[in-house]
């Protein structure tokens, strides 16, 4: 099965921006969210697919094309859900490129040794603060 899609689970503002961004770059994007009105966050220029469903259900993930995905981003607002989806993507569906946003850095340890890249908004904010402070902005 050819892997040519990008699957984004959780149409949070973060997920929605990535979706629009990648879609504009020509990627084949599928966004999965439990609620229909979450898709309102997507820009009008988004040209991918929107699916309503629960990312915790493997059958829903399969229907969203996880087996044909080269990349998965788990961007729901719940760290625990993001971790679950990332693990399933890595261990069961062997998605090559997985990104996860974690609000609580101390939870990262359960993803250790897995092929998952973690983004810490907390860390990024701290770094940005330090940068601004040292530049005297």
């Amino acid at each position, binding site marked *: 099965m050819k892997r040519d899609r990008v699957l984004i689970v959780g149409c949070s503002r973060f997920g929605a921006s990535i979706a629009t961004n990648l879609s504009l770059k020509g990627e084949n994007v599928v966004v999965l969210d439990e609620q229909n009105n979450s898709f309102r966050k997507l820009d009008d220029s988004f040209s991918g697919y929107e699916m309503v469903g629960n990312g*915790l259900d493997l059958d829903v993930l399969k229907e969203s094309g996880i087996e044909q995905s080269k990349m998965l981003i788990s961007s729901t607002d719940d760290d*625990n859900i993001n*971790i679950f989806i990332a693990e399933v993507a890595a261990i*069961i569906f062997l998605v090559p490129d997985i990104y996860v946003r974690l609000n609580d850095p101390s*939870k990262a*340890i*359960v993803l250790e040794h897995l092929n998952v890249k973690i983004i810490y908004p907390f860390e990024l904010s701290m770094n940005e603060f330090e940068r601004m402070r040292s530049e005297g902005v």
Partner: protein
Amino acid sequence: MKIVIASGKNEADFLIKLFRDGRHKLIVINESREYSNYLSLNNDIPVFFGDSTKRYVLEEADVKQADVLIALSDRDSDNLVICQTAKKVFNVKKTVCIVANPKNVDIFKQLGINSVISSTYLVAQTIMRESTIENLINFLSLENDEIIITEIEIEKEYNIVHKMLKDIPLPKGVNVSCIIRTPHAIIPNGSTIIEPNDRLVIVSIEKNQEPLLRIIQEKKKNAKR
């Protein structure tokens, strides 16, 4: 044993009562302040108030090296994180959790949780058992249907009545473990003769259950109509 009960409502209360015999060290964590108070008052034990999915909460509750941690949240993803953190960070020996979605039983086991229990799955099995038309047959499945234990009552018209076990052409991979001939329970051998009203307890692999039942329930050729 050092036992941790994380999250949950009715199950937590029930389990605390079960484990409270003084021999075990019980650690109870709950993320609802109201329920923590209730559990504490109702069971006269200290209860940690906090979100068990957070590392510092498990740390403060001192779960390290526990023998068992039982995660009872109604959110499967929370239970996953609680159990994995307990194992990886705190060296808890065995993790057990309930899952709301029966599909997660296999997945969670693959992700390293020792024991995964789905109430839906168990309820469905019980209902299936209770509603089998033939009340003569009960069965129990283990290891997610790999192994079936069947209990079947032998009617007097069955072909196998008065035959020795060794003369009955049972399928391969089937073991007649016990014959209940009230008030006795017999562990049979090849020469044991099957009598009417015997209840046979048979262990088999799943795919042999149907042929097994067919052979056992086959009626004698001259059985009256």
